[in-house]
C-alpha cells in the first residue's frame, strides 16, 4: 500500500519540476541555438560542440569556452576561466545540500550534474516554500532533465543551422550580446555589480596585450576585488546607520 501511495507523489514532484522550468525554456532555447552556431564558427567540430553541451552543461561557460578557443587561448587558461565562471554552482550545491544531503550517492551524482542556474532557481524556491516531502528531490530531477533535454536539442539545432549561415554575418558578436543580457539585471540594480563590471572590463582592455590571454584571469580578479571592496564599504555604512 505504501508503495502505491509513493508513486503519485514522486510523479507529482517530477512533473511540478518540469512545469516550473517550462516558461524559462524560452530563454534557454535561443541560448542553445547561439552556442551551437558559435561552436562551429570557432573551429570546433560538430561532435565537439554537441558533446560539450553534455560534458560541461553550463551555458555561459560554454560560450566563453568557444570564444577563448577561437582566440587561440592556452587550454589551461580556458579551463581556469570555465572553472571561475562555474564557481557559482558550488554555492547552489551548498544551498541544496540541506535538502539533498541525506540521499544515497547514486542520487547525488545525477542530481549534482543537473544543477544549473535555472534548475537551482526553481528547486530552491520549492524546497524553501513548498511542502516538506521525502520525494522533493524528484522536483530537481524533473526540472533538471527538462533543461538538459532542451539544452541538447537546441545545441543540435544550432549546429545544423550554423552550417547554413555564411561567415559575413559576424555571428561571433552574439557572444558579448549574450553575456550583456546575462549580467545586465544585476549591473543595473546594484552599484557594486556595476563597479565590478567596469573595473573588470577596463582592466581587460588594459591588460589585453599580456601573453597567453592571462588578462582574462587578472581582470576577473580585479573585478572581484572591487566588488569585495565596495561590498565592505556598503556593509560599514549600513552598520553605522543601524
Amino acid at each position, binding site marked *: 500500500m505504501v508503495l502505491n501511495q509513493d508513486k503519485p507523489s514522486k510523479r507529482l514532484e517530477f512533473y511540478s519540476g518540469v512545469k516550473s522550468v517550462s516558461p524559462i525554456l524560452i530563454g534557454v532555447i535561443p541560448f542553445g541555438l547561439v552556442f551551437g552556431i558559435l561552436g562551429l564558427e570557432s573551429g570546433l567540430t560538430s561532435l565537439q560542440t554537441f558533446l560539450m553541451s553534455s560534458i560541461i552543461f553550463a551555458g555561459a561557460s560554454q560560450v566563453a569556452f568557444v570564444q577563448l578557443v577561437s582566440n587561440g587561448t592556452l587550454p589551461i587558461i580556458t579551463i581556469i576561466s570555465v572553472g571561475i565562471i562555474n564557481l557559482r554552482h558550488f554555492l547552489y550545491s551548498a544551498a541544496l545540500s540541506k535538502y539533498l544531503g541525506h540521499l544515497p550517492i547514486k542520487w547525488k551524482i545525477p542530481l549534482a550534474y543537473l544543477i544549473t542556474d535555472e534548475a537551482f532557481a526553481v528547486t530552491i524556491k520549492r524546497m524553501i516554500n513548498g511542502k516538506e516531502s521525502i520525494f522533493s528531490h524528484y522536483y530537481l530531477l524533473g526540472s533538471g532533465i527538462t533543461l538538459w533535454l532542451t539544452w541538447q536539442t537546441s545545441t543540435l539545432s544550432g549546429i545544423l543551422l550554423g552550417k547554413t549561415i555564411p561567415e559575413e554575418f*559576424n555571428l561571433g*558578436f552574439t557572444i*558579448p550580446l549574450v553575456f550583456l543580457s546575462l549580467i545586465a539585471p544585476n549591473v543595473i540594480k546594484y552599484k557594486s555589480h556595476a563597479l565590478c563590471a567596469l573595473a573588470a572590463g577596463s582592466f581587460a582592455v588594459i591588460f589585453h596585450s599580456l601573453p597567453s590571454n592571462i588578462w582574462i584571469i587578472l581582470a576577473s580578479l580585479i573585478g572581484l576585488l572591487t566588488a569585495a571592496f565596495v561590498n565592505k564599504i556598503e556593509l560599514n555604512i549600513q552598520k553605522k546607520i543601524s
Partner: protein
Amino acid sequence: MIWLTIVVSGLITFVLRFFAIFQVKNSNIPQWLENILKYVPTAVLSTLIFPEVLFNDSNSIQLIENPKILAASSALLVTILTKNVIITIITGMLVLWILTLN
C-alpha cells in the same frame, strides 16, 4: 587537445556542483565567500565583453567610428527595457549589420 580541454572543464564543473552536496551535513560557506561568489559572473563576463566590443579586427583599441560600440549600447538599452535575450541579440546584430553595410 580540444577534447582534453572540454573533458577537464566538464570535470571541474561537475566537481563544483557535487562537492557541497557530497557532504551529508548542511554545508556552510563563510558569508564573505558567498558574497564574493555572487559577483563572479559579472566580473568574468564583463572581462570578456569589453575587449570584444572595443577592439577591432586588427586587435587594437578603437573608440571612434566603432560600430560594435553602438550595437552593444543599443543591445544594453533593449535588455534593460525588455529583459529578453532573443530581442537583445537581434537588436545588437541588426544595428551592427546596418552600420557595417556599404
